[in-house]
């Protein structure tokens, strides 16, 4: 297999040729926040809107048939991309957050989590895989417990013991702050031993390496379109079919029903049961194109490139005096998000100075406040990479950090 041709890939992303204020070329190192979109994805949606637009499912006319076929083809592509045993295990939501809330709500509504039960998360969760479980346990009277992380930023599986009381274990596959890749298979094993369901937040995983939900063995997997070169406005919940088929609906409305009278309603089979109202039609087309794009490059290549760039960036950052990486410092079981602090300069000021050099990174708590608290920092600066990131961009990051240090030190 030929190597990953970054320069060829970059040609598909017009935004990467932008120059910013002061005529600085854009160095986009914020892909864990949202990825950029290739022309192919944007054009697929454009074509859909201008040539095939209609509502789906309900329409029997030719445009309706075209739109329905295009929408459902997006589902097929996603199902294949993640190795879903059945296409109707793929539920479209508006983002990963909705997918995770959906699971939390219906498990509560169904009585599968109730007073005295335990829901287990980790201190490494993105707020979107923490707050829904806080709300669920508050509503039901269940207890929220968690696995802690070690000082190196690894999950400490000894920090909590799962028991028969544990009904759900919700865990992120890859930390969006630390970059840590968690041993999800081991967690699935332990959880299933005590009969708990496993919900995996794969928002940072599916974009970056090959995922096979069947092999993973989890019960639910959530991710989001905009981080995988797809559009905003679409997320995915994959769930085991037998489980989805048993669960009550989340939102009520058009397209999720079987039959309706004023007094009572019965519900459609999955996935439609969980897709009330007009679905993200053009966004499914866009996500399908995104999946095609990634598959054409090959997720193995995408993963290998991320590994290379991350290793390179870790080297660069480790060598900068006054810079501390928060999270694993070795490129082992580690994704391409690196959070760091710069002595004497607040992360927002770091980000601002980097931005003045054209380097776009994120500063703040990265929707992981408890994890920042765990490491005794209020915020960090984060650089994150994707299939279009070059070593030259990492060098630009290093130079911009040095500039920042002298800017704040010299004045």
């Amino acid at each position, binding site marked *: 297999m030929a190597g990953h041709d970054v320069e060829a890939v970059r040609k598909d992303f017009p935004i990467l040729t932008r120059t910013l204020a002061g005529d600085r070329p854009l160095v986009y190192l914020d892909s864990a926040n949202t990825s950029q979109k290739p022309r192919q994805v944007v054009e697929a949606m454009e074509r859909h809107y201008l040539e095939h637009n209609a509502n789906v*499912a*309900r*329409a*029997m006319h*030719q445009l*309706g*048939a075209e739109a*329905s*076929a295009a929408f459902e083809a997006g589902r097929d592509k996603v199902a294949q991309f993640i190795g879903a045993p059945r296409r109707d295990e793929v539920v479209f939501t508006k983002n990963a957050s909705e997918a995770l809330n959906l699971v939390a709500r219906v498990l509560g509504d169904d009585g599968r989590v109730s007073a005295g039960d335990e829901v287990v998360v980790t201190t490494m969760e993105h707020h979107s895989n923490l707050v829904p479980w806080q709300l669920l346990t508050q509503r039901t009277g269940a207890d929220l417990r968690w696995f802690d992380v070690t000082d190196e930023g690894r999950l400490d599986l000894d920090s909590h013991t799962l028991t028969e009381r544990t009904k759900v274990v919700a865990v992120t596959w890859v930390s969006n702050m630390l970059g840590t890749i968690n041993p999800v298979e081991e967690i699935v094993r332990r959880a299933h031993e005590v009969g708990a369901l496993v919900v995996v937040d794969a928002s940072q995983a599916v974009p970056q390496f090959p995922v096979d939900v069947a092999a993973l063995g989890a019960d639910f997997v959530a991710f989001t379109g905009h981080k995988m070169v797809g559009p905003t406005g679409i997320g995915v919940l994959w769930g085991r079919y037998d489980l989805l088929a048993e669960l009550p609906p989340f939102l009520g409305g058009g*397209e999720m*029903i*079987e*039959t309706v009278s004023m007094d009572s309603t019965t519900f*459609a089979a999955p996935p*439609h049961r969980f897709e009330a109202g007009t679905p993200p039609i053009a966004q499914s087309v866009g996500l399908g194109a995104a999946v095609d794009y990634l598959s054409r490059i090959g997720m193995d290549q995408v993963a290998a490139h991320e590994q290379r760039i991350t290793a390179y960036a870790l080297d660069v950052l480790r060598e900068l005096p006054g810079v501390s990486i928060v999270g694993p410092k070795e490129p082992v079981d580690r994704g391409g998000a690196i959070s760091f602090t710069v002595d004497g300069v607040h992360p927002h000021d770091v980000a601002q100075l980097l931005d003045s050099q054209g380097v776009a990174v994120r500063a703040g708590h990265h929707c992981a406040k408890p994890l920042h608290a765990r490491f005794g920092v209020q915020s960090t600066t984060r650089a994150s990479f994707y299939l279009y990131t070059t070593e030259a961009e990492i060098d630009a990051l290093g130079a911009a950090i040095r500039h920042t240090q002298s800017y704040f030190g010299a004045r």
Partner: protein
Amino acid sequence: MNAANVDAMYQEIILDHYKNPHGAGLREPFEAEVHHVNPTCGDEITLRVHLDGGRVADVSYAAEGCSISQASASVMNELLVGKSVEEGLQTLTVFQELMQGRGQVEPDEDVLEDGIAFAGVAQFPARVKCALLAWMAWKDAVAQASAEEDS
């Protein structure tokens, strides 16, 4: 999906079955009754099966829906009553293959008889469910009735 195709869908045979449905109405005795709905369009069918020692003694039904779904129930009644459950399920498989073949499957007249008239419907994905509604209901009812018989 032009005018020619519409003619391919609305075969004379289909319109005949629609106007004079075979075996319509709900009858006794029966071992299982099911109610199926096509949620997209609202077509409904209530269907009963009466089995007699592994044979389909009767399939009775009350259906509300378009010409395709009605005609399909009528053709199905003709095809299945008198057959063994096993033969019936085989016929269903053949019919299903035809319907899901997007117009690429050659219909087998020996097995499907009047059912071959539905070949044109297979070109209209939105209408395939209409043609399958009665068949799916029958499959479901037979499963229930057989479970009943066995227990």
